């Protein structure tokens, strides 16, 4: 029963006593041109808008807003306040006040973007606009398979609602599903694991509070009497929904989404490959199955070390301080029914369609050198169970265990470069990632997400955040990965608040200038989330 011992409890008591120190930290770092008195005046106005209970700027109340997993050795990214509105009208009033006070605000939905920054803003001195209290499921249409939700709705809440009302629709979750929000994850262009896994593909219609306080609805949403807001994405003229993802051009207060009808047959699979060198063979085998949609969900191709890090500690695989060598990983993997690569996918449909497709995928994947395994062989293996749950929109938080892989400090930063789904590219990426991680003393705990035609290399940089030297090393390592992968043409699809500007640089000056012009036109006071995606 480790993990909650006397030392941990004493540490907690120390942290309780250190609240005064925390206050000095957060109050020391205002946004440019702002003073502590300015923030105080702004927060008092926030109290008048949302009520005294929902505007926070003392140290104790701000603590949960400051929790981060990413490496940030400069220790500058802290919010100076938080405000939690309940209605769109309150959001409009907050935006108007932010313009008057020139106080930047950082919108979050549920603030659980773990390994990308949680609720922490990308520049110092911002007030978090916490939309968690806006948590209504406004509409579910069981005939069309659509939903309209507010930002504070969690995947758990949506799933509960569907089950309680006996509506045979699935949700599609990211790995922190119970706590995270469909709106937040979609706006960050996150992914899940059913055939509806590319979340922005399945978004339909938004309501946005613009920086000037106007409320705009996208797609068909501005047509009085239209029933198609959640059915037809494009409306008329420029399609603008994408402008409100990974951006700071407005505050999304409602979002439509499509939900997958529950299929009569669902069969999860795991393909076990024995060697690290099997990367290209797996991807070459999977690509035609994905492009043809014979396999319709996003496949996760998990390295053994990634899998082990979920439920085990590093020192159970190799002694403390020793490199994580392939032979040790392979031994631990085999002891747990895992290969060096473990690829998960599922078939969805009817018994007849599954029975028709299964022999084809078995033939292709066996030829790649993999063992094709199902529930019949894997039983209650916890890793198989984890993925079988995710691939039907089930909820768990198993992957939070990764933050305990290396020490107790809870350090995690996702590095996620994108390439085309070609085996040779993945092979080169794996070599480069291992070289950089080895150089800085970190482990290759990585997976590939095989999309329809793309490959996301999902590298979990795991470190001990309670060790200042290790946090600095993790920061250096992450930045080296961004820049050296970038030189090879592999840029991230998403990044943490500490590296947003660095990743934006990879995409070039013309793109940055385009983003900046839109920002200047829509938000001339730069009050909404400056720094998001490298947009000031």
């Amino acid at each position, binding site marked *: 029963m480790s993990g909650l011992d006397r030392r941990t409890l004493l540490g907690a008591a120390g942290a309780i006593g250190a609240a005064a120190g925390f206050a000095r930290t957060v109050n020391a770092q205002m946004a440019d041109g702002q003073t502590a008195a300015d923030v105080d005046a702004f927060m008092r106005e926030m109290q008048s808008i949302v009520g005294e209970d929902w505007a926070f700027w003392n140290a104790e109340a701000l603590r949960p807003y400051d*929790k981060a997993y990413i490496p940030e050795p400069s220790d500058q990214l802290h919010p100076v306040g938080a405000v939690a509105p309940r209605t769109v009208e309150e959001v409009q009033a907050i935006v108007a006040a932010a313009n008057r006070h020139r106080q930047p605000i950082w919108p979050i939905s549920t603030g659980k973007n773990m390994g990308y920054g949680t609720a922490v803003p990308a520049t110092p001195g911002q007030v978090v606009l916490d939309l968690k209290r806006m*948590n209504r499921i406004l509409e579910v249409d069981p*005939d069309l398979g659509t939903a309209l939700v507010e930002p504070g709705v969690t995947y758990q809440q949506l799933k509960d*609602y569907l089950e309680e009302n006996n509506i045979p629709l699935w949700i599609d979750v990211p790995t922190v599903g119970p*706590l995270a929000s469909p709106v937040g994850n979609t706006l960050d262009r996150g992914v899940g694991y059913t055939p509806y896994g590319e979340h922005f593909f399945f978004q339909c219609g938004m309501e946005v509070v613009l920086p000037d306080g106007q409320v705009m609805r996208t797609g068909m949403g501005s047509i009085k009497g239209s029933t198609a807001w959640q059915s037809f994405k494009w409306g008329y003229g420029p399609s603008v929904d994408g402008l409100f993802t990974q951006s700071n051009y407005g505050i999304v207060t409602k979002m439509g989404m499509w939900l997958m009808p529950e299929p009569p047959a669902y069969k999860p699979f795991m393909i076990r490959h024995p060697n690290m060198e099997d990367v290209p063979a797996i991807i070459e085998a999977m690509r035609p199955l994905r492009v043809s949609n014979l396999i319709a969900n996003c496949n996760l191709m998990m390295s053994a070390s990634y899998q082990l890090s979920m439920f085990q500690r590093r020192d159970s695989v190799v002694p403390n301080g020793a490199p994580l060598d392939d032979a040790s990983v392979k031994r631990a993997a085999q002891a747990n029914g895992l290969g060096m690569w473990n690829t998960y996918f599922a078939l969805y449909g009817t018994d007849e369609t599954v029975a028709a497709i299964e022999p084809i995928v078995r033939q292709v994947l066996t030829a790649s050198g993999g063992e094709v395994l199902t529930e019949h062989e894997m039983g209650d293996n916890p890793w198989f169970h984890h993925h079988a749950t995710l691939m039907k929109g089930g909820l768990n938080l198993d992957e939070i265990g990764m933050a305990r892989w290396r020490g107790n400090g809870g350090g995690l930063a996702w590095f996620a470069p994108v390439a085309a789904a070609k085996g040779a590219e993945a092979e080169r990426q794996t070599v480069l990632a291992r070289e950089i991680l080895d150089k800085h003393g970190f482990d290759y705990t990585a997976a590939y997400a095989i999309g329809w035609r793309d490959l996301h290399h999902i590298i979990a940089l795991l470190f001990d955040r309670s060790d200042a030297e290790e946090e600095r090393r993790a920061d250096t390592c992450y930045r080296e990965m961004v820049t050296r992968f970038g030189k090879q043409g592999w840029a991230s699809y998403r990044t943490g608040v500490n590296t947003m500007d660095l990743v934006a640089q990879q995409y070039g000056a013309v793109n940055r200038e385009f983003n900046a012009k839109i920002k200047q036109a829509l938000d001339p006071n730069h009050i909404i989330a400056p720094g998001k995606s490298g947009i000031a």
Partner: protein
Amino acid sequence: MIFRFIALSAVGSLCLGGVALASAQEAEEATPRAPEQVYAETCGYCHGVNVGPIIRGRNLPPVITKSFVRMGPNSMPAFRQTEITDEELDALATWLEQSEADPEERGQ
């Protein structure tokens, strides 16, 4: 075998005249949730399922529980007042202190 979705849609258009079974759900903070519900919806996804340490049946002092929930020590996420209200957290911390160990939970 038929998709339950298809069956429901057919019935729905007969019974409801094609009108969507829509709801305007009230925001959820009006009634504080019971500690058992907060535990099941949040804590229990990690604690007792091989991710976080077991915390039931250990007489944890409420002051520690409340501090941990708000600060998120080590690898634990922090939870804000908008996620678990102060009132819910008080009840959760007391309930946890007095809770029995659950033999179904798995520690590590």
